[in-house]
């Protein structure tokens, strides 16, 4: 097994020809952008490619959440906490540019049993470094005046935040360019070239061959396709989600990301087919975003009125005031998920030079900077900020 560090004695930054790099990052979404930024800051010569425009994948189809509330203790929570700290480095510089909204999250439950389970889960999260505040039934209204009456209570997570992820990715790519990175949208990857010893030598694109020692697979929902090109498959599959966007509302109608207690359980489920849970979230522009649905339907882009209907019904149950409010837009995205709902991060011993950074399901925005840090550490042979075993591309068994 290859240790989680780069080869000793490697010399960086000597690539001189226009199409020769140290690292090719595949995917100009939020994860690719963070990777490009950190790798170029570390002195590596980086090229970011994307078959579409920048931010044309799932990054542009989500809500931009940076959450700790929906993470159970374990590797994903550890990555989320690491990543959240790193988000603040960027936000210190560009809070307005990326429209940071540190509004917090509120999980509510209709039943006493549900509330008890919520509180128990919150206690565990608290023990692992998440701020949580139990909110009694009579206190809910002070946090969210328009919540339906009769809820049992909830848990408030002040650390949940939202950013505008497209702007964040765009600013990161801009910074990467200023650090010497090349950003090439509309450049489709065709295959990953390897030498006779199996080591990565380049990325063949529609625009020509890019020589490189490392390829970072930040292709999100298409990460499985990219991995296959290097003969190192990973089972990243699409999980479709719809979002409703309301017309702009009076500020303060909804104040947090509010969701029903079964949201977390929804994510960890393995059943095929549709799952929905109520999520209602304010935005700085005044619209309210309504989710959340998960389905395994491949890349089916057609509208499911049934799903839209369920999302609307759930949202209006939580916030009856929304019944007469209109949806002005709906959109859908395809979350990249792995069977165990954990991302794939790190070196792949099946293809020396291939580094994965994908499969973040619905948590990509929050987990992106932590992923980029780990990827950079793996490539440069620096000590890892956290173990990568749980995210290993080899964990799925042979022929994944």
């Amino acid at each position, binding site marked *: 097994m290859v240790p989680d560090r780069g080869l000793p004695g490697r010399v960086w930054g000597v690539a001189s020809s226009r199409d020769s790099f140290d690292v090719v990052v595949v995917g100009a979404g939020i994860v690719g952008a963070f990777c490009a930024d950190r790798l170029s800051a570390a002195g590596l010569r980086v090229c970011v490619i994307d078959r579409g425009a920048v931010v*044309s994948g799932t990054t542009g189809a989500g809500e931009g959440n940076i959450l700790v509330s929906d993470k159970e203790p374990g590797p994903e929570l550890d990555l989320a906490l690491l990543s959240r700290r790193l988000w603040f480095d960027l936000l210190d510089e560009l809070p307005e540019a990326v429209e940071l909204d540190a509004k917090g999250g509120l999980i509510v439950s209709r039943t006493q049993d549900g509330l008890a389970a919520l509180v128990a889960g919150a206690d565990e999260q608290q023990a692992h470094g998440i701020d949580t505040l139990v909110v009694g039934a009579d206190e809910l209204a002070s946090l969210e005046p328009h919540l339906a009456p009769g809820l049992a209570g909830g848990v408030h997570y002040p650390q949940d935040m939202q950013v505008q992820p497209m702007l964040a990715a*765009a600013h990161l790519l801009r910074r990467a360019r200023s650090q010497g990175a090349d*950003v090439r949208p509309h450049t489709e990857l065709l295959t990953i070239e390897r030498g006779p010893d199996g080591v990565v030598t380049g990325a063949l694109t529609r625009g020509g061959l890019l020589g490189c020692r490392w390829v970072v697979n930040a292709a999100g929902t298409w990460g499985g396709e990219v991995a296959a090109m290097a003969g190192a498959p990973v089972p990243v599959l699409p999980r479709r989600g719809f979002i409703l966007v309301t017309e702009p509302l009076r500020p303060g109608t909804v104040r947090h990301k509010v969701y029903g207690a079964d949201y977390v359980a929804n994510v960890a489920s393995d059943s095929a087919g549709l799952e929905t849970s109520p999520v209602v979230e304010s935005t700085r522009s005044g619209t309210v975003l309504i989710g959340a649905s998960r389905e395994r339907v491949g890349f089916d882009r057609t509208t499911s009125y049934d799903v*839209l*209907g369920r999302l*609307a019904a759930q949202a*209006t149950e939580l916030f009856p005031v929304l019944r007469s409010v209109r*949806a002005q837009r*709906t959109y859908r995205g395809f979350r990249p998920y792995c069977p165990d709902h954990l991302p794939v991060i790190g070196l792949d011993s099946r293809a020396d030079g291939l580094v994965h950074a994908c499969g973040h399901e619905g948590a990509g925005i929050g987990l992106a900077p932590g992923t980029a840090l780990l990827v950079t550490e793996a490539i440069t042979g620096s000590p890892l900020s956290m173990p990568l075993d749980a995210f290993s591309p080899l964990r799925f068994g042979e022929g994944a």
Partner: protein
Amino acid sequence: MSDSRHQHADVVVIGAGPSGLAAAVEASVDGQHVVLLDQGARVGGAYWRHSPAHLDRTAEVDVHHDVATFRRLLDRLDRVDVRTEHTVWGLEQLTEGFRVRALQGEVSRTAVVLDAPSVVVATGTHDRVTPFRGWTLPGVMTAGGGQALLKGTLVAPGARVLLAGSGPLLLVVADGLLRSGVDVAAVVESGHPTKYAVHPRAWSGLSSRTQEATTYLATLARHRVPYLAGWSVVEAHGTDRVDRVTVGTRRGKTRDFEVDALLVSHGFTPQLELLHQVGPETRIDGDGSVVVVVDEEQRTSVPGVLATGEVTGVGGASLAILEGYVAGRSLSRRPVDPAVHKRIAVHRRFAQAMHAVHGPRVDWTQDLPDSEVVCRCEEVTAGEIRDACRDLGIDDARGAKLMTRAGMGLCQGRMCGRAVADLVVASTGRPTAPLSAARDAYRQPAMPVPLSVLAEESLGSSDAAPPHN
């Protein structure tokens, strides 16, 4: 959803303008259940806006809009199930047939669902306006909007009106205003209609058009209204409403007019939102518009969906009526005289000639300062869009939307979409791919829908049983 709201028909025609009326009338001849939907309180669309009283007059008030044809179509509507005040927001392809979702009543917003094996989309256009300095001032409206006020409700858009932009609509509206006693300060056309001479064949067979244009110009002359060709709006001035407009030539000559209303139109944008929901083949027409491809029976590439009128290519009301007629005959399985197809061809040729002469100036973005709003709903400026292109690597209209919010407001990019695309092209030098952009323009719903209406969908089942009467 409850059965009382879920209905069936043989044909649903969406849009009761000239082509929708013609299609519905013809399709109903053999006794099929034809439902005709329109968002307005009356049929006629944006073209036939005549108030009931106006229509009853026997005087030849509006010969240029062929009111006689309108009356003939109205007389034949008795077999059509006409439903006004229905705003369609969703068109869904089922395993068999289609489901049309609408809201009845602009205020009541009641859910209406109709299933039918055939749908005719005749949703027409809205005016196209390229942004200019001061275009968001009250009193600045589209020429079509001003005409709708006047024709439909006999209300003048202002006391003294300037018309500007490009296209034959300007003359038509000016004529209407003058006949109604409204003071028209000038008609300002950015194109050079003398260029029509380059397309003589296009005018053949359409002597009526030449006649019309001459009549309009004569009316202008009679009222001493200047017609300035090769001029365009430089700026609309005013504090909370327009009170003065500066127009100018390419070479920098300018003139001011004191007016309280400015009616603008740079052409038309076909309204394809519902069609995009089922994804038929589209193409770019001579005026740069995305339009739907149809065969000689007005069928789109989606079996069961027909399209008529401006959505197949901007070409005027006469062409629209012919297309509707053809679609209606196709749906009622009756042949069409080849002479009709010849007439359609003549009209389409003429339309292409018009497209070549009219439209916004190709380099219109050069005259737009950074400070001017481009997206009216979200108040995004040209500068913000240019900054996104320059600083954030944006190279397509979708990216501009995601970064600046342009196109994310209530009108969902209808007013600003083309302008944003033009600005991105001008900033990046990168040509757009408008067809794929249109294909990816996932605009669902086509109009805002109350969440309570959407919520009813979750109780419904999958595809309906085969439609019955």
